[in-house]
Structures are given as structure tokens and as C-alpha cells.
């Protein structure tokens, strides 16, 4: 239960709702959520399947806009931002870790990590250097030229974490990052996330079904049918 908070809200939701429309049928997935996450926090989000965890995480990450309410992340009003602005926001502030790693199969580990830096207009050797540093952080400096299919699931997820931190974002969002991994690999990933929070002061929001994973976070929140409980 250690987290490097310093008292300023990094993420702030005020009466945030999200409704999906499917064939004219409205589905209110998030119901007037109020939530504050401090800078440097490490929070886990739990809840039954379909409760809206991923939807909430996507909103925080700037992937989607709330249907109503106010959502402020890293000082930016997500709800008011257009598509391209949100893309720039994500590139600058958010590191993504997905359950299924989502590495580009045609790129090597190093290239996958370099990918977000293509948006930063850095010289090639600088990109390369930063990617190598990020891969060292996750302990994969010996696998840099391997393709994703030549790596184990745990290694792939570590590459994905290197990709998430290479741009030095303030926030890391992880949607079930250990969901596809065995216990041992899952622990490595959780150790890594913990280190990113403590050593690198990243604010982390992690969705998980795994109580052992949630235990590592500073705060555990539960979502049920679109309500925080």
C-alpha cells in the first residue's frame, strides 16, 4: 500500500455518464460517476464483467468522450476536445497497456517501442536510444531485435510496457494487463508497474479481475452496473 501521491488531482470526473446507442436502444454504461485520482496514485478498478470498467478507463485515457459530465485529465478537458486534439493528448500524456499486448507483429521489440516516438519528430538515433532505455527498464535489452511472435506472453507485455513509457507519459492505463499471463509472468508485470509508480512517479489506473493484482495498487475501486461502489 505505497503510492507516491502528492495531493493534486491528475484525473477528475464530475457526474460523468456514458451511454452507448445500439440500434436506437440506449445503454447507460456509466452512471454519473464522481471520481478523483491524485497525481502519482496507483489505483485498481475491479468489478463484474460488463460493469463498465473498460469504458471508464477509455474515457480517462481520452479514447472516448463522456456523454455528459466533466472529465479533466492532466489538466485537459477531455469532453471538450475534438478527435485530433484527443490524439495529441493521448500521445503526450497516456501510456497504454492492453490485455492482449497489441504489439505490431511486423515490428521488432525495439521498433514497437519506438513507434510512439514517430509522432514526436525525434531524430532516428535519438528514438533508438530512448527505445533501448525503455527496454532496459523492463529488462528486455537482450530481446530488442526479436519479433513479437518470438517472445513469450510475459515478454510481449513487457515490450508493451516499454512502449507505454517511452514517451514519458504522466499516466499509464492498463486494462487487465495480467489477464493473459501465468502467475509468474503476471508477477513480473505487477512488479514492473509498481516500480513505474514508485520510481518513475507514474499515475497508474489498472483494470483487473485478479485480486492479487489489485492488492498491489494503493487504492482499489469497485464498479457495479455503471456505479462506483
Amino acid at each position, binding site marked *: 500500500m505505497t503510492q507516491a501521491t502528492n495531493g493534486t488531482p491528475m484525473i477528475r470526473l464530475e457526474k460523468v455518464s456514458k451511454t452507448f446507442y445500439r440500434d436506437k436502444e440506449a445503454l447507460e454504461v456509466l452512471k454519473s460517476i464522481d471520481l478523483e485520482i491524485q497525481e502519482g496514485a496507483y489505483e485498481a478498478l475491479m468489478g463484474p464483467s460488463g460493469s463498465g470498467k473498460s469504458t471508464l478507463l*477509455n474515457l480517462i*485515457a481520452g*479514447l*472516448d468522450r463522456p456523454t455528459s459530465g466533466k472529465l479533466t485529465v492532466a489538466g485537459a478537458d477531455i469532453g471538450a476536445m475534438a*478527435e*485530433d486534439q484527443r*490524439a*495529441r493528448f*493521448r*500521445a*503526450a500524456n497516456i501510456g*497504454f497497456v*492492453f490485455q*492482449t499486448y*497489441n504489439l*505490431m*507483429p*511486423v*515490428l521488432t521489440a525495439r*521498433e514497437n517501442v*519506438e*513507434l*510512439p516516438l*514517430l*509522432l514526436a519528430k525525434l531524430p*532516428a538515433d535519438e528514438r533508438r536510444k530512448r527505445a533501448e532505455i525503455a527496454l532496459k527498464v523492463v529488462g528486455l535489452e537482450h530481446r530488442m531485435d526479436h519479433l513479437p511472435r518470438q517472445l513469450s506472453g510475459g515478454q510481449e507485455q513487457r515490450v508493451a510496457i516499454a*512502449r507505454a513509457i517511452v514517451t514519458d507519459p504522466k499516466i499509464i492505463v492498463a486494462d487487465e494487463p495480467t489477464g493473459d499471463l501465468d502467475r509468474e509472468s503476471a508477477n513480473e508485470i505487477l512488479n514492473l508497474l509498481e516500480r513505474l509508480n514508485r520510481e518513475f512517479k507514474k499515475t497508474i489506473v489498472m483494470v483487473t479481475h485478479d485480486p492479487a493484482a489489485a492488492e498491489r495498487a494503493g487504492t482499489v475501486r469497485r464498479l457495479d452496473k455503471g456505479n462506483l461502489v
Partner: protein
Amino acid sequence: MNLASIAVRNVGRNRVRALLTVLGVAIAIVAFVLLRTVVWSWTVAIEQSASDRIGIRHKVTMIMPLPLRYAEEIRQIPGMTAVAYANWFGAKDPRDENDFFATMAVEPDDILAVYDEVQVPPEQVEAWKQNRRGALVGDVLAKKKGWKVGDKVRLRGTIYPGDWEFEISGIYTASRATVDRSGFWFHWKYLNEALPPRQRDQIGWIVARVADPSRSAQLCRTIDEKFAERDIQTLSMSERALQASFMGMFSAVLDAIDLVSIVILAIMGLILGNTIAMGVRERTHEYGVLRAIGFMPKHILLSVLGEATAVGVVGGVLGLLLSYPLVERGLGRFLEENMGGMFPYFRIQPAVAGAALALTVLLALGAAAIPAYRAAKLNVVDSLRRVG
């Protein structure tokens, strides 16, 4: 690494599909280049034809002869620089009766003055003039038959029966495609003297060169008017008009070939578009990830278009590489040697090759436009949710 190199690598994801598509594009390019070259090669005969030459024949039909004195009379008309006449001899090589080549009886000085693009070493011209049985043959024919200067050649007459003895005096080539390089020319006097008296002094047609090409149409009228009241009337036409009227018969065919060549490219575009659309659909999830990371719709759009361009260029270049040996060396050489009259110059024009490549890229971009636009417009959350 950049988006372009990722696009190129994406092409190789499904090797079999990429290979088949590239081959499809390549085959379409070969077909396009072939058809375009057929059209070009046919029409080049018109463009290359001399505008300062006019042909004069029997008004009724080409196969009816004119009196020899007509040539002398035409020579007297002001504005003529050279006049030649010829008879179709129509002989065959007894060793290979199916092999066609044009045998004609001509006057050496006249014919070489009218067809100044014909090139022969001067000593061979001299030898030809001195030798009554001498023949001047085109280099393409000489090569095919293995004839050398000094060889004795026996031909079998069809219009003028019997075996005819010749000696190869010279071998000509031509600086333009207007002259059939498979021709066999021999002394008109040799033929004339061998004929029974009532068949003598008749000529198949006349070709004249005029001093001022812009007056050739007017001179044609002058000639035809001059013989209008005689027993045998003439029909005169500039070489270019003659070629054009000949081509006119084929213009519908040429238009059809034109159209087919475009249709082939369009089909190629559809094949390419389908390949790209399949790849894009399979990679929906990856595009979602790229978008999540911060890439913009325009990046996705460019990456899909880049992928299509890569396939188009690889297929296009492969197609061109195949076209040269197939169209130029294979078919082209065959056509030039065997149908030189119709395809005097069967070569791939740089403009045709360039157009093939440019159209491929344009079609690739056009075909990829819809999938690229769709990929760019994908909803990020939806495409991430889609497991791909």
C-alpha cells in the same frame, strides 16, 4: 523505421496473397504494354510515313498495271524530284514455299532516289547496278535466309512462272520504319526482257517524290487529271494518306484494343483494392492500437495508401521487367521478322512503359482510397474492442 516502411512490411504479412496480387498486377501490366505496343506499332507506320512521297496506281485496282510511259510522263510534271516504278513479282523460296517476303522488280537508280531512307554501302549499289541478275535484299530477310552478298539465289515465280536466278548484290537497311526490311528488289529490265512482248512495258505502280510536301495533295490531283481522259486512269495518294486509309480500316479494332487495355488496368485496380481491403479489415485492431497511441486518421490513411502504392509499384516494375523480354524480344522480334509490313517497328515506347507504371500507381491509390478512408475513420474504441 517509419510509417512507410511499416506499410511496406504489412504487404508481406500474407505472403501468398501479396504474391498473387503482385503477379496479377504484373500480368495486367504485361497485357497493357502488349496491347498498347500493338496500337502504337500500327499507328507509327502512319507517323513515320513520308509526307513527300506519293503513290500512283491504276484507278480501278492495285493489281491492274499501268503503262511504263506513264512514269516518264509523271517525271515531266513540275515539282517532281524523283519517280520510281515497281512490279509485284510474287516469287517464293522453293526451299520454303510458305515463307512470305515481298519480291519487286524496280529500277535501281530510281528506287534508291525515291526511298532515300534505304541505306546500302555504295560499292554494293554499284555492284547491283552492274549485275543484271543482281538483287538488293533487306537485312532482316537476309538474316533469316542466311544470304550473303555474292550468294546465288533461285526463286520460284508465281505470277511469272518458272525458276528465276538471282545473285545477292547488296543488303540494305533503313533509317526509318517506312521501308520493309524484308524486301527483295531486283532489276525491272531483267523481268521485262524475260516476258512475252505483249506483257512488256507494264508497271505495277509508281512512287514519286515531290519537292514540296505541302503540295503533294495538289500534285496528286494534277496527275489524276492528266490521265483522266486516257484509257487507263490513275489514282494518286500521298504515302501518309495511303497509310491512313489502310489504318482506317482497322481503326475500330485499334479503338477496341485501346479500350481493352484500359479495362485490364481497371480489373487490376479492383484486384488490388480487394487485397488492400482484406488486409485493412484484418488489421482493424492494429489501427485501433495505433490510434490509441496517438496516431491520427491521416497517418492511417497514408499508411494504407502507402501499402497499396508499394504493391502497385512492385507489381508494375515486375510487369515491365517481364514485358521487355516477352513483348520486345519474343513477340516483337517475331512480328518484325514475319509481319514487318504491318508491324515495322514493334518496340515498347518509354511513354507506354511510363504510362503503365503511372496508371498502376494511380489505380492502386484509387482502389485503396475507400479502404484507406474507412480505416482512417474507424472509431478507436470500437476497433480496439474488435479482436483481430
